[in-house]
């Protein structure tokens, strides 16, 4: 592993060099309260001490809307899958551990069974530069075990105050690190980096009663708890925000669009949400998830039971806190997990 210390005064010059290596995206302030990942033009716009962004980095690999999966020409009958590789390397600067874990979960899903080569091509042409984070009262990555500062990252930056300790874990990361003006890391730098990593998740101490590995079984035993129908089913407004902002939600809808020339067009996919009433509706009107309680349960179970047991291990909630942060009805994963934990416990006694 190569590492080095980048002084903050030299950081801007490094970012300028990164811009030439591909399409560079990083966290920027969007409004007073919110951050977003956006194209980096000026290094000064970067808000590397951000807490969380509105949308997770999945948007670079599965765009929210109108991602073309097929191009067609109605006159000639030609059909073509568009070029899968992005024109330039996608470089994401300033990714938190939870979001990296989110991408790793998505990788599993898109690879499994029938691999989706468009997604995989975009991921293969991406370089991820992680950063230590600045958690707020919604973060709970340590509770779901996603405070991993190494797995999936090409390069990782730990904020040491006046500088960053940069650790490269892959050849891609080493290549980008070589573009920076660095000094040798001391033992103290390593220790400060360790401290910066520890800060993640723990600072605000969100209450999360169950152990994450207990959740698949709690889900199994908690299917009939009244909390689904009487609490979450009633509170949820079915807006679908939670799935849009989730780093591991990837359900999509597909539609065909014909251009104004009435000849050419494309088949595109856009994010869909299991929280919307029509999600499971088939022609004829039958809905297989017929009420909001069922849909709420489905979302939570997909994170902690279905995909967890399917892929044999890690939770599909990475503790980024976005769904709770954005929910108008103030429903959060920790609240749901705690009520499930207490509900199942009460059921048994």
């Amino acid at each position: 592993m190569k590492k080095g210390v980048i002084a903050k005064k030299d950081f801007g010059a490094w970012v300028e060099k990164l811009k030439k290596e591909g399409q560079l995206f990083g966290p920027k302030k969007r409004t007073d309260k919110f951050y977003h990942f956006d194209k980096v033009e000026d290094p000064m716009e970067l808000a590397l001490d951000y807490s969380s962004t509105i949308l997770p980095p999945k948007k670079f690999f599965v765009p929210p809307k109108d991602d073309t999966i097929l191009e067609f020409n109605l006159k000639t009958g030609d059909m073509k899958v568009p070029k899968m590789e992005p024109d330039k390397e996608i470089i994401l600067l300033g990714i938190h551990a939870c979001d990296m874990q989110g991408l790793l979960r998505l990788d599993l899903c898109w690879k499994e069974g029938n691999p989706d080569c468009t997604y995989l091509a975009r991921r293969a042409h991406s370089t991820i530069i992680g950063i230590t984070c600045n958690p707020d009262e919604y973060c709970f990555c340590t509770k779901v075990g996603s405070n991993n500062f190494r797995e999936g990252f090409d390069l990782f930056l730990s904020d040491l105050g006046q500088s960053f300790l940069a650790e490269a874990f892959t050849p891609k990361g080493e290549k980008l690190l070589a573009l920076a003006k660095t000094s040798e890391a001391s033992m103290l730098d390593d220790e400060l980096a360790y401290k910066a990593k520890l800060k993640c998740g723990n600072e605000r101490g969100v209450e999360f009663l169950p152990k994450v590995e207990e959740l698949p079984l709690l889900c199994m035993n908690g299917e009939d708890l009244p909390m689904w129908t009487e609490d979450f089913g009633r509170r949820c407004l079915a807006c679908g925000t939670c799935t849009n902002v989730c780093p591991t939600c990837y359900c999509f809808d597909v539609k065909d669009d014909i251009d104004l020339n009435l000849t050419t067009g494309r088949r595109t996919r856009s994010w869909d949400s299991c929280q919307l009433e029509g999600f499971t509706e088939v022609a004829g009107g039958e809905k297989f998830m017929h009420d909001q309680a069922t849909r709420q349960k489905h979302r939570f179970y997909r994170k902690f039971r279905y995909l967890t047991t399917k892929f044999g291990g890690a939770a599909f909630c990475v503790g980024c806190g976005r769904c709770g942060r954005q929910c108008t009805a103030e429903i959060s994963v920790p609240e749901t997990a705690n009520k499930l934990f207490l509900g199942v416990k009460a059921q048994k006694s």
Partner: protein
Amino acid sequence: MAECAKNPESLYLPRYATIKKIINMTEAEKFYQLELDDGSELGHQPGQFVEVSLIGYGECPISISSSPTAKGFELCVRKVGRITELMHNLKPGDKLGIRGPFGKGFPVEKLKGKDLLFIGGGIGMVPLRSFINYATDKRKDYGRIILLYGARSPKEIFNFPEFEDWKAGKKDVELHLTVDRGDDKWKGNVGVITTLIPPLKIDLEKTVAIICGPPVMYKFTLLALEGKNFKESNIYLSLERRMKCGVGKCGHCQIHGYYCCQDGPVFHYPQIKGIKEAL
């Protein structure tokens, strides 16, 4: 990227098929005989489905109604949504986009030597027909072929090309028909499909039930089979879901941990028993 080295484009790229013949089944259903333009056979198993594209309009999942023992393939399409309505306007010679076959079909190999009890309600007959024709084409491989078929009214009974043969007992298919509501000319059974189950004389050890119908039918059919001491491990069901992508990605057809388009649409009853929202 190793996953994508081989034929990376195939996931969402349809193949063209040409409509060779259209038969009107009922007021709402048409029957299409198709052949793939590249001359290949679809290579499906009975019980599988395809994603049918009207390029420029969209795509929908449709059960394959023909047996793989026949040339080409056949679809029976009810006019019920946007794409199927447009499909009803097509003529022989028109082309459809086809992806698939997808999903798990009926376990035709595993069921060799068994008596087959098909229980089909309404459009549920469409995938069952694929297996029925497969079994009559490979007659020696299977025991009795019993078909319970329920339609809402006599007008809604599907007049499949071999239906007259079934009625005449020619293909060795023991057909029991019923309709929810008869009409002036109807002389057969009137009543829901479950009324056909109690009088059946079957060998419980040897018989396998294969069920497909509207969502409401499963629960009552399972109860009727239970009343006959039918073994749960001898029951297979084909389920309907919104199988939008067909390849286990888009999420619409998920039944708990299962993706209906990959793990189904045919399920062994013990797989899904007790799963909420499955039946």
